[in-house]
């Protein structure tokens, strides 16, 4: 079944390009170029996946995310941005996006990411994987107040998966490399996403900002 996709981007050219690339493979149910209209139309049309631009006037993608996930948690978001800045990446994922890819992604990869998000899985670009590894880097940086190791640490296996993704491996390559199934890779990645969204690690909120200053 073709997923129903909604596009949000304030650049007309990008919207047109995305439409052209995606139209043959998914059902595009609408597009919006600003926050308020996007929220309204998404809530009305209930797409499977929203392709969301991170930088927009009026609160950006984060505003759309917060408003929609509140009212319609079943709508899934894939963030799409030109920015590689850590704080942007972390912010949208923490706000509820199921994944983050940059606009330089190729069309087949974008399609794969959309299908993956539509299936409820997480999409980690190499860069996002790197950010997460960096943010969850070492255990000794874990503050004493962090009482929930379940949420605040990565398992060795998750670390392995993320490393391979950061090295440029596709999910199926990761699966082959670790001799596990693609489904297992997906479940590891989803678990990392959950930790990323729910963790109270000090690093997550401060690391992304500090990263720019050092």
């Amino acid at each position, binding site marked *: 079944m073709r997923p129903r996709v909604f596009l949000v981007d304030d650049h007309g050219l990008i919207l047109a390009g995305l439409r052209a690339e995606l139209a043959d493979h998914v059902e595009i149910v609408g597009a919006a170029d600003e926050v308020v209209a996007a929220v309204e139309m998404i809530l009305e049309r209930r797409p499977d996946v929203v392709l969301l631009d991170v930088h927009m006037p009026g609160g950006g993608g984060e505003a759309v995310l917060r408003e929609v996930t509140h009212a319609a948690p079943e709508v899934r978001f894939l963030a799409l941005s*030109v*920015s*590689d*800045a850590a704080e942007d990446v972390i912010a949208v994922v923490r706000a509820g996006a199921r994944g983050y890819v940059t606009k*330089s992604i*190729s069309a087949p990869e974008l399609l794969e990411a959309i299908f993956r998000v539509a299936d409820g899985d997480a999409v980690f670009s*190499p*860069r996002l*994987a*790197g950010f997460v*590894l*960096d943010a969850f*880097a070492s255990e000794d940086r874990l503050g004493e107040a962090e009482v929930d190791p379940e949420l605040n640490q990565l398992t060795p296996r998750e670390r392995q998966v993320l*490393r391979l993704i*950061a*090295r*440029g*491996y596709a999910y199926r390559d990761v699966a082959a490399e670790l001799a596990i199934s693609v489904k297992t890779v997906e479940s590891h990645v989803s678990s990392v996403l959950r930790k990323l969204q729910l963790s109270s690690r000090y690093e997550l909120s401060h690391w992304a900002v500090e*990263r*720019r*200053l*050092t």
Partner: protein
Amino acid sequence: MRRNPETPLHQGVPVGVLPQGAAPAPVRDFCAMSVTTPSHAEVGVPHRPLRRGADNALVGGVCGGLAIRLGVSERSVRVVTCVVALLWGVGLLAYFALWLTVPRAGEDRSIAGRLLGGRNRLARVAVAVAVGALVLLVLHPFSQALLGPLSWAFLLAVLGLIVVWRGATTEERQRLEELGRNTPFLRTRAEWTRTSAFVRILVGLVLVLLGVRLVALVSRPIDGGAPAAIFGAAFVVAGAVVLLAPWWLSLVHDLSDERRSRVRVEERAKLAAHLHDSVLQTLTLIERSADDPGQVTRLARTQERELRQWLFGPATTNQEATLAGALDALVGEIEGDYGVRVELVVVGEATLTESLADLVAAGREAAINAARWSGAERVSLYAEVEPEKASLFVRDRGRGFDPSAVPADRHGLAVSIRERLAARGGTATVRSTPGQGTEVALEVALA
């Protein structure tokens, strides 16, 4: 506006419901006449009841009302009031007495009348007077040190002001609030009018003089002693502040305005220079090479990388000195020279030691190899710094090769990389499958 709960509701309503500025027409005529043609007042005035002025009021409108009633100019009434106010405060007390007991123009009840209009009035008056007297007795010794013989009059006037506030109609309260807001103390010089400057200078001088007088009193301890000295100094300071604040404020405003605009201009110039040197140049180049798609892609990528670095990159100037900085430069070089996209992910950070420089150099060889031979459009670079080692992975998803059947030239390359890293306690591993791509794993030990 807050409605005083003790003021019966209906009393405020007749005036309060009128839109501001829409006072009943007769009042306006009445006052207009008094202001423009004072001589007429003499004829008509004796039959008019005394009313406080609404439109010609400075504070409570008492002087304005008296002027109309007596048929003299407002200014002379005000001057006389001020002079009498200095005589043990008689003028001040008289002013407040009239403020409380004379209805405002256009109203038929005075403030006192309104406040006393309800039931239980005797009890309420008794309680109010008792509380007032108590407050006055407590405050009197302190104010005596400040104001000398004017003390009682001043305290009574303050009480009067409180009573006025409680009993005032909505309209009059709004006027008083506005008066408070427009008190000229906190305006900058640019907002000055002649009146506000005059009031400011007067208030400032009075405060300074009071302060000096109090300090002088210290020689006669009976009148005040220590409190007088403290209050005196405070008054002098307050006076100086009131006098000098506008100059100081406008100085601060001017300075910060100037700084802000200078910063803005500099930022703009920097931005313009940058855009001109980079983006505009590149756009021109792209225009010229429109028939060479490869060149266009390369130019666009190089420019994108540079702009991204400028916009989102770390603010440090000395980037080359870190591993991430060196890898960034490497990415720029390869993207520019070979037209492939290089995706770089760095986890952890370290300053660029000799070992790490060798790691980067080895990575450069591997990445150039991938860009040149693999046929892939994208090369992934992943670097990770751990406490005891640093690793760098160069991966492409190009045509790959069979490592056991390596052509001599590429074999030699792998050997040179391997030897260089071995000297640093590191390793280099090449994994490749035909049709699946290649990955070179490089590693050095960190001291």
